[in-house]
């Protein structure tokens, strides 16, 4: 057991000189690693991770932007369609309005013409009646004179004429 515990190469012994060597060289190795070897790797990995993160974020943003644009486009298209439809509808309505207006105007004009025709016909008729009366009166006078020639009974004549005239007016 002395070998296990005693100094000078024993298994459980702590060798001071050796420990000094280990400590000094470990500190030297750690110094080089911490100062020169590892930081570039840390920085490079950090930079790469940052890059990847940023690229992913910017890609996401681009996708969102593209989606927004396409959505906007779609909306504009729909709006335009709705507007076109409205315009078409308005045009149809206007055309209808114009057509009905024109028809009513034509009807009115026609009615006016008919009225005018009717009025002139009435006028002509009245004129004709007046002329006819004069003619009839002349005829009556003529016929009366003829009768006078035959019979000079004025009283009887006047009665005859009046009867005749009233008959005429009746017809």
């Amino acid at each position, binding site marked *: 057991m002395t070998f296990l515990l005693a100094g*000078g190469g024993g298994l459980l012994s702590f060798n*001071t000189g050796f420990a000094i060597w280990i400590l000094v*060289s470990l500190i030297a190795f750690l110094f*080089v690693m911490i100062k020169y070897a590892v930081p570039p790797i840390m920085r490079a990995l950090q930079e790469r991770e940052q890059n990847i993160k940023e690229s992913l974020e910017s890609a996401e943003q681009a996708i969102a932007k593209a989606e927004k644009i396409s959505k906007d486009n779609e909306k504009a298209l729909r709006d335009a369609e709705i507007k076109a439809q409205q315009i078409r509808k308005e045009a149809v309505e206007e055309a209808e309005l114009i057509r009905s207006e024109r028809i009513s105007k034509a009807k009115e004009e026609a009615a006016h013409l008919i009225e005018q025709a009717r009025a002139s016909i009435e006028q002509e008729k009245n004129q004709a009646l007046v002329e006819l009366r004069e003619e009839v009166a002349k005829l009556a006078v003529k016929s009366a004179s003829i009768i006078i020639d035959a019979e000079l009974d004025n009283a009887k004549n006047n009665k005859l004429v009046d009867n005749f005239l009233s008959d005429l007016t009746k017809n």
Partner: protein
Amino acid sequence: MVQTLRRVFLTLLFLSISTSNTFASEQDEAQVLDVMGTVADHNYFKVPGFINGGKIYLPRIFYWESAEGESKLSAYLSTKSVLESGEFVETEEGALVPANGGHIIVDLSITSHLIYFWMGMLLALVLTVMAAGRYKRGIGRTVEPQGAFQNMFEVLFVFIRDDVARDNIDHHKADRYVPFLFTMFMGISFMNLFGLLPWAATATADLTVTATLAFVTFVITQFSGTKDYWAHIFWFPGVPTWVRVILTPVEILGMFTKPFALAIRLFANMLSGKIMIIAILGLVFIFADLFGAGAAYGVGIFSVSLTVVLYALKAFVALLQAYIFTLLSAVFIGMAAEDHAHSEEGYYTEHSAEEVSAN
């Protein structure tokens, strides 16, 4: 039969605690099975037998005090040149002492474990510097990492950074400890794995090495301790004063048990694997000794196949223990560096309420 079993048991017991010297005195030099010698530290570097007889002797450096009370630092190329210089003599146990009295204060000799420590750390450093060069050129920074080396390196590095450091240490502080944790992980991994090579020694199967590694973790932990951490050690918030009398020594003890456990865990795990392999392979020679060559061949099949399995297990354990050491270092640092203002508030009010109700 009983006697045979007793002989086997005694031989195993003897093997496990004997040194090469005591064993060599009994048997031929060629048949020595030196268990402790394989795991212990040496002043030579073991190499295949055809080079310099299997050993390359390492320099010996002593800081010693002579009989006249003079302190001296002496360096020699090898143990042989120490003895040739005549200033030191070898004792019966194989230790070196100054020839004219006095004593060695610190033995600063280069040892095999130190060489393997340097090799492991240097390999970790070289690989990291190589990887850093690639990242500096832009590979892995602006484009994806290329090649098996960089990808494997990055897997390990990102693993240490994300799963070890950032998971256990407050996020805004974690990145500061990544270089330390990564160095520890890579260094210990390589030291552990070097132990699997033929002729090589496991530097981490040495208590001095693991204790020094744990000591560095301990120092870093204490230096990253927040006000809160120190308050918990010396003046535990929210408990009656008489409890603090018990708690403070326990907490102070806890400061030291954590790195102590780190050191012992790594040391014991690496040492046990090595001893187990040697012991199981040693059965072949014991059986050859006891029952002849036939039994040895029979046991050999069993021993070798078991050793192969153990080898695979050791390769896994080598990485696992490096990971555990690093993870626990991160956990300890995280516990010290944590500034848990919110939970502490709740804790404090909760406990002061208890105090009031107790009164």
